[in-house]
């Protein structure tokens, strides 16, 4: 099994498609859809990399990112933030809060794989 990625996204069809391509590429994939318990999920699952959507039920991706960076147990995990294309302010805010990389929706499957490989590269 390859690297472990935690996908925090609440759109089922995106989760399904991304999970499919990552699994086929050899990744171990965990998924989480609720914003309120996302920080706890990252701490529990301890993935190699997190893909985090900005808009989630009950809590925004920004708040989750802030908490992840504020906790020594999760501060170092690479976070690939999913922002909406054209929402520059989202990207700036994610950058300020410590996102490792960004990807804008809509993204291509090849882009997802390339970004994640880059984030876990030694």
């Amino acid at each position, binding site marked *: 099994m390859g690297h472990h990625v935690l996908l925090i996204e609440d759109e089922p069809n995106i989760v399904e*498609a991304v999970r499919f391509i990552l699994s086929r590429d050899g990744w171990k994939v965990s998924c989480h859809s609720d914003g309120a318990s996302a920080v706890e999920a990252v701490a529990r699952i301890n993935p190699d990399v997190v893909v985090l959507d*900005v808009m989630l039920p009950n809590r925004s991706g920004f708040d989750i990112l802030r908490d992840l960076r504020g906790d020594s147990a999760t501060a170092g995990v690479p976070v690939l933030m999913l922002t909406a294309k054209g929402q520059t302010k989202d990207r700036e805010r994610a950058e300020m809060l410590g996102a490792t990389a960004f990807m804008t929706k809509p993204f*291509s499957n090849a882009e*997802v794989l390339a970004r994640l490989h880059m984030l876990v590269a030694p």
Partner: protein
Amino acid sequence: MGKSCKWIFTQPQKELDAAQQFLLAPAAFRRGKNWPAVAVTALTGTRIRERRLLIGLSQADLARAAGISSSYLNLIEHNRRRIGGKLLVTLARALKVDPSHLSEGAGSELMGRLREAAATHPDIAVETARIEEFVGRFPGWSALLATQQQQGAELERRVAALADRLGHDPLLSAALHELLSRVAAIRSTASILADSPDLEQVWRDRFQRNLESDSARLAETSEGLVRFLDSPGETAPAVATPQDELHHFLAARGFRVAELEGGDQSLVEGLISGAVELRSAAGQALARDHLLAYAADAARLPLPGFLERAREMRLDPLKLARAHGLPLQMIMRRLASLPETETRGRIGLVVCDGAGALTFAKPPRDLSLPRHAPACALWPVFAALRAPGTPLRALVKRAGGEGQGLVSYSVAEVMRPDGFDGPEVVRAYMLLVPAALADVPPGPAEPVGGTCRLCPRADCPARREPSILSDGFDSESLTRNIGRQ
């Protein structure tokens, strides 16, 4: 008479001569000369002269009409004599203009706008030092230029406001995110189907269904956005359904409408008309029903007394219904509207119709409630639908979650809105109270989810479709889940 005019006539004669020279000098000469500041003060006399020439009056005629000598008028017109009060009014009447058009004050706003216009184009060498002369000599052109400056500034403000709205409007931002998420899902899924000729049939069917559902939602969201962008006013973007509009409206207020806590139903229309979230007639109608019921509930159960009693009874809706002698559904609605800061935990409420469709959903902290997908069949609210009038209490917890869970109180009511011969309408309520705040029923908590696809419970007997969160990702796990049915 204004300050500046007074100032002119208190200056030494030498400086006033300079002003006169400024006015009388050929334009080419003026451009090259460094004129003293006094030359650009308000020039009422100049305006009088310009106006007189414009309407074709001789100096002698105007002087006669005003009851002054021609030589005195000449001094006035060349700004050598102070003018104001009665004489200014008399001259204005003879010149057929309002006195304010002759006084310096009349042009101050105009000149302010012209200065603004000049400041917005610093690259153009505007003769700002001669602005008063310009206004005095060409009042029509000045007004036109100032009006255009004002219109330009207004348009800039409007563009800035629209840009700000596009960047910060939470509803528009949510609608755009929804649209882009749909496109992302379609793009990713379509790529899988196109790039995987050997994809197993079970997955191919699944992805094709996903494409269909995403396409339908994309169409809905796009239509809503187009309506929003076409609307001239400050209306909010359309979200998918009228229920979504009501949800956004209530969620923005924490599911609590402080304005209606006094029980005044006459405030409802004002709240609806002022709500950007409620853009469709259907959304407004839903909100009207909800808010009228809210106000009625608040009138019957005023907050301070109800809150105190609710705490005493550990938020148990059945005990509260008995204590108040009111319907259980009303108590549930009221409990769900209590301030979170007072109850020290978020109370959720789900309302569904006889078909199981959610018509209202205030999520508790630890459980996501689906807005566009079928809900978890294990929710006690669906058990209540099968036994109308019977209150049910159960302990539930989010599948895969930690903590004590939630105590659910459910009840269904049967109505015949159209009378005895009309159709039977069923509505069920489920109140979700954090277990730490309630009396917990015996026995273990039942794991429940939001909707099947996002629920990790592997052994769920009520699963209607496989979860995308289940461990492993192979066709075997998928068919195993489906085969259970």
